[in-house]
């Protein structure tokens, strides 16, 4: 063992002054090497000097009481162990989860509304298709089937002037005009269905 390694080892032994913790190799080296023995002496001296620098202090006898008072105070200011404490402990997580649920709810609500609108439009189109087909057939001169429940069909007939106007309408605007007619027909159909159900307007 070299002097260097012995000196390094001496530094890392806490109770070197008692020499109990020194292993046999170091002890043998110290017996043979006066320089290392002197180094141990200097280290021991420094150790005792350092210990003189700081005497043990006891602290206040009321340390525990003061600590308990602090902990009691902290306990009063904390929010206990209820749901609020759970919320406060992971408040960022909970806030994120709430926002996520709200966002998903809004999205689902929007999609539902869209679906309802689409369905009502489909219903309108279906009703129109069911009820307007005979009217269209009559326009073409086909035999008009008798209205259901003998109700009076007040289908507005296209006049010659209206047909002329329609001819002058550009193709791209024609769809708009047709939709307008559909809406008018829808109003008419509603009346028709009401009357067929209620039987208010009856002929014969």
């Amino acid at each position, binding site marked *: 063992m070299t002097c260097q390694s012995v000196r390094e080892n001496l530094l*890392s032994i806490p109770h070197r002054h008692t020499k109990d913790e020194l292993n046999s190799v170091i002890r043998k080296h110290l017996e043979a090497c006066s320089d290392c023995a002197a180094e141990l002496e200097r280290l021991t001296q420094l150790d005792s000097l350092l*210990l003189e*620098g700081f005497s043990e202090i006891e*602290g*206040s006898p009321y*340390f*525990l009481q003061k600590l308990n008072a602090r*902990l009691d105070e902290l306990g009063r200011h904390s929010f206990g162990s209820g749901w609020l404490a759970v919320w406060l402990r992971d408040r960022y997580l909970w806030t994120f989860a709430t926002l996520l649920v709200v966002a998903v709810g809004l999205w689902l609500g929007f999609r539902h509304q869209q679906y309802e609108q689409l369905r009502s439009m489909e219903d309108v189109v279906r009703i129109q298709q069911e009820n307007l087909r005979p009217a269209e057939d009559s326009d073409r001169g086909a035999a008009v089937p008798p209205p259901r429940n003998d109700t009076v069909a007040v289908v507005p007939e296209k006049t010659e002037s209206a047909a002329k106007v329609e001819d002058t309408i550009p193709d791209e605007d024609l769809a708009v005009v047709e939709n307008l007619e559909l809406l008018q027909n829808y109003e008419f159909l509603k009346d028709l269905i009401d009357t067929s159900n209620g039987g208010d307007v009856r002929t014969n």
Partner: protein
Amino acid sequence: MFESTDAMVETISDVELMLKVKRGDREAFGLLVGRYRRPLINFIYRFTANPGESEDLAQEVFVRAFQSAPKYEPKAAFSTWLYRIATNMALNYLRDRKPQLSRSLDTGLSVEQGTLRLEIRDKAALADERLMEREKVIQIRQALASLPHNQRLAVVLTKYQELSLREAAEIMNCSETAVKSLIFRAYSTLREKLLPVAESRR
């Protein structure tokens, strides 16, 4: 025969007590405070060189330990865990205090790396120091305070607190070799600075 309650309490390990604290047992925490109050106050006192503040800091350490009890996992020794909290608090305290250059203890002390604040408010410590040779004490404290924080911490943990190199390494979150190296450098500096004091003793 039955063991007395005190003897039974003494046999309960720190980890067992801390697991009780984790379940909200304040009495178990009181026992832990009783075991570690004095070593912790002295550790902070030696590391910060401020006896007046060391007790308050020790209180803070225990409060922090109590608050952290729900997260406590018995991976390392309880003392290591507690010393780690204390080390962090003491380091924060030293960093915050660094610009504060005050002189006290009617000594007119001046340390090379700033002025060492030595406020001796603790009556017991003051009485102790009166008995000692004041100048020598001041020189020793100056020498220790002039060390970088990590060297000082290594010396305080191993020399004053009598912890092993392994324990010190765990507290300082480094290897045993690193602690050894820190002690080696610290002792080289201390020997140089305290040579006149050591000579005067002979």
